[in-house]
């Protein structure tokens, strides 16, 4: 690509003095960054560092505070008046973690949607459409055929179809910037390799790529330069060849890190409630740990590390592909959630609306969803007893509802979460698996929820908690396991247990023996 080479190194996109204030927080504070033609520029930062805010400003979804400037295509734009239309006209293309594709439509159709079909009058000219799709498939190295439904493609190829759709009208590869937001988070290992190799090829042909990822090993492998944000500020940009994982983490956290000696292999417990050996299934490759009675144990990990799936495997919600679980010394093989519930295991899913609540049903019915059978006595449901139990739970868990017969959907997020929590806690399970227990919950409700969990643990319940909020894990847990790529990479206990250490460990890819 001779044209691209002559311009190599010139900046195609530059942002200056970008700030963004939300009520109560400053998400971005005077950020300035430049992106050069044909480079893969990685953007790193913790949760809350301002990465997603910056991307939303570039997409024109958020208006920046006045004073920021975006330079692109030889022009300068006021960042407070940037819009999705301007972003598109400048060739800024965004592809997200789970690309918006239509799985049942063909590759050719997916590529045409949003751009328009090749038509003759009102009629779609399928031969032209197919030929166009074929050219894109070749140009973007996709393993597909124009007529295949997208659902039949490998995950990496689906992402490539989304990229091709975004970039198809770009003349050559020299214009514009492709912005990828965690593109590998949902991909299995070998697929990640292929996607990275293909992206590398795009960059060599002159495509500028802004690559947002949590995975340090990927960033080190494919990027040319790397920038980090911390607390809304740009804290550094460096050529990737000068970096290693330790330096990247230091840059993100703003302090020197020494490789922490793992406290691995804590002494085996004498009478564990749960012992898991080489558990595998889905994203979980092989996981072993033990839990004592009354212990609160966290599992930290980045998106795709498999930490949520460990909970689902223990609950019988996802199929295991290997490993052994013992519960109270007995072999435990939950094939479906009811098997786990019968052994008094409880599970709070991360996605409340999708997996936990019965929105149109009443608070009372939501509270008794697991154990409504116990009110069936003398051939009828004892509604009175169900009601008094519901009212007791509403009082005990400080659920704000006008009546126990109110539909659950009329409650606030925090109160819905308390209902789901109360549903399980009132039965006093032996093991409570919690996925993001305080997600989408206001601060005071979060404090209340932590209180209930601590109280339950004090009474002897064992809790296994997954959270992307490492602060929460550090506050709540007696110890935290860190998962990387489907394995447990490390374990932290006080006094070493804090959110910074968890972040460091979760980012280090390789498992240190």
């Amino acid at each position, binding site marked *: 690509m001779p044209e691209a080479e002559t311009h190599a190194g010139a900046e195609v996109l530059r942002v200056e003095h970008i700030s963004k204030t939300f009520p109560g927080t400053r998400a971005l504070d005077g950020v300035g960054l430049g992106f050069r033609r044909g480079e893969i520029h990685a953007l790193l930062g913790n949760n809350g560092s301002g990465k997603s805010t910056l991307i939303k400003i570039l997409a024109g979804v958020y208006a920046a505070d006045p004073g920021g400037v975006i330079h692109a295509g030889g022009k300068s734009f006021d960042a407070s008046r940037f819009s999705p239309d301007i972003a598109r006209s400048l060739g800024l293309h965004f592809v997200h973690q789970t690309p918006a594709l239509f799985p049942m439509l063909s590759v050719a159709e997916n590529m045409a949607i949003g751009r328009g079909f090749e038509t003759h009058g009102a009629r779609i000219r399928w031969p032209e459409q197919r030929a166009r799709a074929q050219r894109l498939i070749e140009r973007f190295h996709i393993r597909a055929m124009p007529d295949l439904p997208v659902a039949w493609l490998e995950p990496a190829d689906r992402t490539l179809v989304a990229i091709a759709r975004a970039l198809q009208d770009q003349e050559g590869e020299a214009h514009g910037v492709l912005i990828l937001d965690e593109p590998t988070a949902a991909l299995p290992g070998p697929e990640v390799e292929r996607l990275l190799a293909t992206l590398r090829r795009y960059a060599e042909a002159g495509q500028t790529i802004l690559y947002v990822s949590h995975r340090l090993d990927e960033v080190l492998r494919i990027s040319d330069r790397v920038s980090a944000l911390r607390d809304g500020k740009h804290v550094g940009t460096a050529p990737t060849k000068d970096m290693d994982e330790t330096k990247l983490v230091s840059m993100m956290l703003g302090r020197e890190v020494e490789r922490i000696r793992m406290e691995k292999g804590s002494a085996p417990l004498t009478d564990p409630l749960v012992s898991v050996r080489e558990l595998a299934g889905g994203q979980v490759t092989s996981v072993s740990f033990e839990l004592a009675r009354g212990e609160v144990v966290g599992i930290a990990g980045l998106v795709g590390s498999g930490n949520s799936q460990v909970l689902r495997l223990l*609950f019988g*919600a996802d199929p295991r592909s290997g490993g052994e679980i013992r519960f109270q010394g007995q072999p435990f093989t939950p094939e*479906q*959630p*009811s098997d*786990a*519930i*019968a052994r008094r295991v409880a*599970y709070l*899913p991360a996605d409340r609306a*999708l*997996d*936990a*609540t*019965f*929105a*149109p*049903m009443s608070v009372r*019915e939501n509270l*008794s*969803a*697991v154990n*409504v*059978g116990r*009110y*069936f006595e003398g051939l*009828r*449901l004892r*509604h009175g007893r169900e*009601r008094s139990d519901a009212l007791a739970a*509403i009082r005990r868990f400080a*659920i*704000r*509802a*006008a*009546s*126990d*017969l109110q*539909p659950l959907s*009329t409650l606030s997020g925090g109160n819905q979460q308390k209902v789901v929590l109360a*549903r399980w806690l009132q039965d006093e399970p032996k093991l409570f698996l919690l996925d993001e227990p305080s997600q989408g919950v206001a601060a005071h409700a979060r404090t209340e929820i932590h209180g209930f969990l601590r109280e339950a643990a004090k009474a002897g319940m064992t809790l296994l908690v997954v959270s992307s909020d490492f602060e929460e894990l550090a506050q709540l847990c007696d110890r935290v396991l860190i998962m990387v790529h489907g394995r447990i990479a490390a374990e932290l206990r006080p006094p070493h247990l804090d959110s910074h250490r968890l972040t460091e460990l979760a980012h280090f890819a390789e498992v240190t023996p």
Partner: protein
Amino acid sequence: MTESTLTTDNSGPAQPGRPALHAKSVLFIALQRYGLLVLFVLSVIGFSLYLPESFPTVLNFRNIAGNQAVLAIVTLAAIFPLICGHFDLSIGSVLGLTSIATASLLSKYEWPLWAAVPAGVGIGSAIGALNGFLIARLGLNALITTLGTATVITGVITWYTNGLSIITGIPVSLTDIGSGVWLGLPCTLYFLAVIAVFCWYLLEHTPFGRYLHAVGANPNAARLVGLNVDKLVMQSFVVSGTLVGLGGVLQVARQGGGNPQIGLYFMMPALSSAFLGATSIQPGRFNVPGTILAVFFLATSVSGLALAGVDNWVESIFNGTALVVAVALSTILSRRQAGT
């Protein structure tokens, strides 16, 4: 009864931090819950005043009650899969099949009542089980699957009957029940009452009913609280098929024979009554009292219009309009309520 606790709770003291329900929203809730009942009463009063000679007569009410019993049973059959979130379009044709089968076993094969009736009902259960298997176990779309089974059954009925009704050889003991009157009310109404109470009991007073509602509200969450979702969906179709089978037998008793075409006349009214019923008594939820109310509200109004000299076509127009208006009102009211 759940309904009585509903009203006391709403006027009861509110928890701190949340305002008590306004008088206005209590009115909205009452309007939503009992609007159809009020309309029913108003239409009876209206027609009685307008047609004092023909409408408010024992004979007319007996006719309405006697004729609607089978439709009401088929409507109750429809709500079981609907509660789980699945349509059953085969109810009409299964009604046709079970009534033809029962009539034919009685007249052509001269089976005794005690054998023919369970056989007719059993055919209904078996088709429910087949639908349930295809939908729950194989994960097929319920609308398409039941459309398919309905079409096949219609074909089987036509093949077997050549489109002719079975009108002879039905034992008098059965037809007596169909046309008989006990204590001033049609016998079929007692059958309906027993079945309705049973359905109400199943849905409101057993864990099974609660599980069905949970599956319909959120199948993922239902699985994660330990319910066997597939089995429950399967069972809802078996209950539905069995109820339709009972309806088929009752239809033979009422008509004194089997008519191969009745399926057509039952499916749409049953589904629309089911949806109309879900807008009242327990709005937003398929419920037995609401369903019965919907069936009789439509039948009474249509009977009044017919007696007033309006042609047959008015039935469809009235049923359809009532359904759309009821759903629209119920949606608007619940939106207003959520906004208060």
